[in-house]
């Protein structure tokens, strides 16, 4: 199913990665096209990682952090939120559909929500189509 879009997800260690683990221990099923990278806090996630993921061929990037107010490091998730909005504005300027980047809050107990999110997001990406970023950047015309 290589035609399926590839999603790179950045999950914070304390809430979202744990939530994703919970989806696993609860044996919930979701789309297999997601590849997770663990960071300690969503505050660690910056535009470089996201742009890099697209540049390497990702079709969608999912960023998950703790719910507002629940950040393990106080406000890292808010910092992520601010960067996320600016990044969306930037990528739209370059012609990329900004919905290819999604930020959601997933708590450690939200295994089900995580599984639903992955399916929902990958459907959204399917709808948008495969990303042309990698191909476009490798083309010299």
């Amino acid at each position: 199913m290589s035609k399926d879009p590839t999603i790179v997800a950045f999950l914070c260690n304390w809430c979202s990665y744990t939530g994703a683990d919970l989806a696993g221990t609860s044996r919930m099923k979701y789309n297999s096209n997601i590849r997770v990278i663990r960071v300690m806090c969503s505050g660690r996630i910056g535009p470089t990682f996201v742009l890099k993921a697209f540049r390497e061929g990702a079709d969608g990037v999912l960023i998950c952090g703790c719910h507002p107010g629940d950040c393990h490091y106080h406000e890292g998730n808010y910092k992520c939120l601010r960067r996320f909005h600016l990044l969306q504005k930037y990528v739209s300027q370059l012609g990329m559909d900004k919905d290819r980047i999604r930020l959601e809050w997933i708590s450690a107990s939200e295994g089900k929500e995580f599984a639903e999110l992955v399916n929902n997001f990958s459907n959204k990406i399917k709808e948008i189509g495969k990303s042309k970023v990698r191909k476009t950047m490798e083309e010299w015309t």
Partner: protein
Amino acid sequence: MEEKRIGVYVCWCGTNIAMMVDVKDVSKEMEKLPGVVLAKNYKYMCSDPGQDMIIKDIKKYNLDRIVVAACSPRIHEITFRNALENAGLNPYMLQMANISEQDSWVHTDRIEATRKAKSLVAAAIRRVIHHKPLKKRIVNVHPNTLIIGGGVAGMSAALELSEAGKKSFLIEKSDQLGGTAAKLKLSFPYLNDVVNDISNLIKRVEKSEHIQVILNAEVQEIHGFIGNFNGIVKTTDEKEYSIEFGNTIVATGLKSFDAGKLKNYGYWKYSEVITSIEFELLVKQGVVVNKKGIVPENIAIIHCAGSRNENYNNYCSRTCCMSALKYANQLRNLLPDANIFEMYADMRTFGRGCEELYTSTSRKGIMFLMFDQRAELPLIKEDERGNGVVIEFKELLSGEEIQVPADLVILMVGMEAHENAKSVSHLSGISMDSNGFFIEKHPKLDPVATTTDGVYVVGSCQAPKDIPDSVSQAKAAVARILATILRGTVEVEVTTAEINADICCGCQFCISVCPYGANSFDAANDVSVVNEVLCKGCGTCATACPSGAISTKHFTDEQILSQIEGLMAKVHELEELETN
């Protein structure tokens, strides 16, 4: 770049992984990747033989980096780090790929799951190439402890430390010790008199030579880190204390829910309506009358005032049901002929002796009426037929719209975080949840520590609690503190931020970004510096640093970027393989 010698280990986890991921295929593929010396698969990597295999291989093949593809690093990262350490390798030369919780268990297509596993392991291999050995760091611990809040929790902690002969500063905002518990007459479920208990506790605190009580005081500043804090405490009469301490216990307690917010209950309007706090005062005085001075005949006790309701506080305040039952008993004794109505949303009577109290109370001629929290709250209005008020609502068990006459209504007001919580959270560097309660380090396994080392939360400032829970938490925190004091040293976070002074230009973006105040500006050298003891390694500053001067150990840009590359390279490789 010197040659990397990577060992890759793919775990079967019995059949947990192996049934959905072709582990042999994964390890075979990984062997081909640059830097990989060997790739093995084994039934249970976390078992002793599994770990021994890694240890032997490290020695035999002179491996310098290890990738374990198994379960979540949140489960076994520590296990394998220890294995590396046992083999004489730095524990941080490990990277795990989660092919269980985030692969085999959540997917149904074996081919897809195997493909995903390959990509995750390949990413881990790329990442581990950039891992660097990290050194443990150890600091000394000052034996004094700062305790903020002189309620039951704070006092219990102080006394426990005093037992061990350790000094504590007990800072109380008001002019007396005792906190909320000092306002109570009886305690549930055994209806014991707490007045004496609390005053004895206060006496013991005041007598102790190891406890320095500072009343009418607030903490102004806290600096430093575990083992090495210093702070300034200021009293209302402007006296200032500069103190040094190794650990902090936050026990700032609670604030009662403001009953006036509940429009339906008309707290300000009807003299019949009082709060549970006011009722405690009445029973302490031994006279139960409403604000008109009339001895009530019909008494309604309304549970969940401001709790478990999406318009107010979503959470349960835990103690109100039991207190309400306690009141019913007190009222039955004081006013044997009165009609008593318990109006509850759900009766929550867990804990020893609590269900028993409910059972015995239910046999005392008390009418229990259930209302629906999700619907509109009961409405209190003037009784057209009598002197008092009447409470109108839909009784949930019967589905009947009913009226309850009352000339005394007791609102069981819930607990809220203390209004000082926010400033205390900033002072001590601990997190607050959306309700303003302090967040513990781990909800199950580390419920008294916080994410700031050396700072503990006890009592109702962490979540609504009853007295025994507060006391247990206080004593648990003291046990943790004493352990560090007795050892004299503590280990501190390794995966901290570090600033490359050759690049840092002193723009100071990183200073306010840090929730722990770990970054500061060194004006003499015109660069920012990280206090690695304070730093928790979240990496927010590294991402905020515009020049790339800051990196987060073990989560460097290089490591994450190569992980992305590895992840995607495998995706493309497989994709191309398929299209050809």
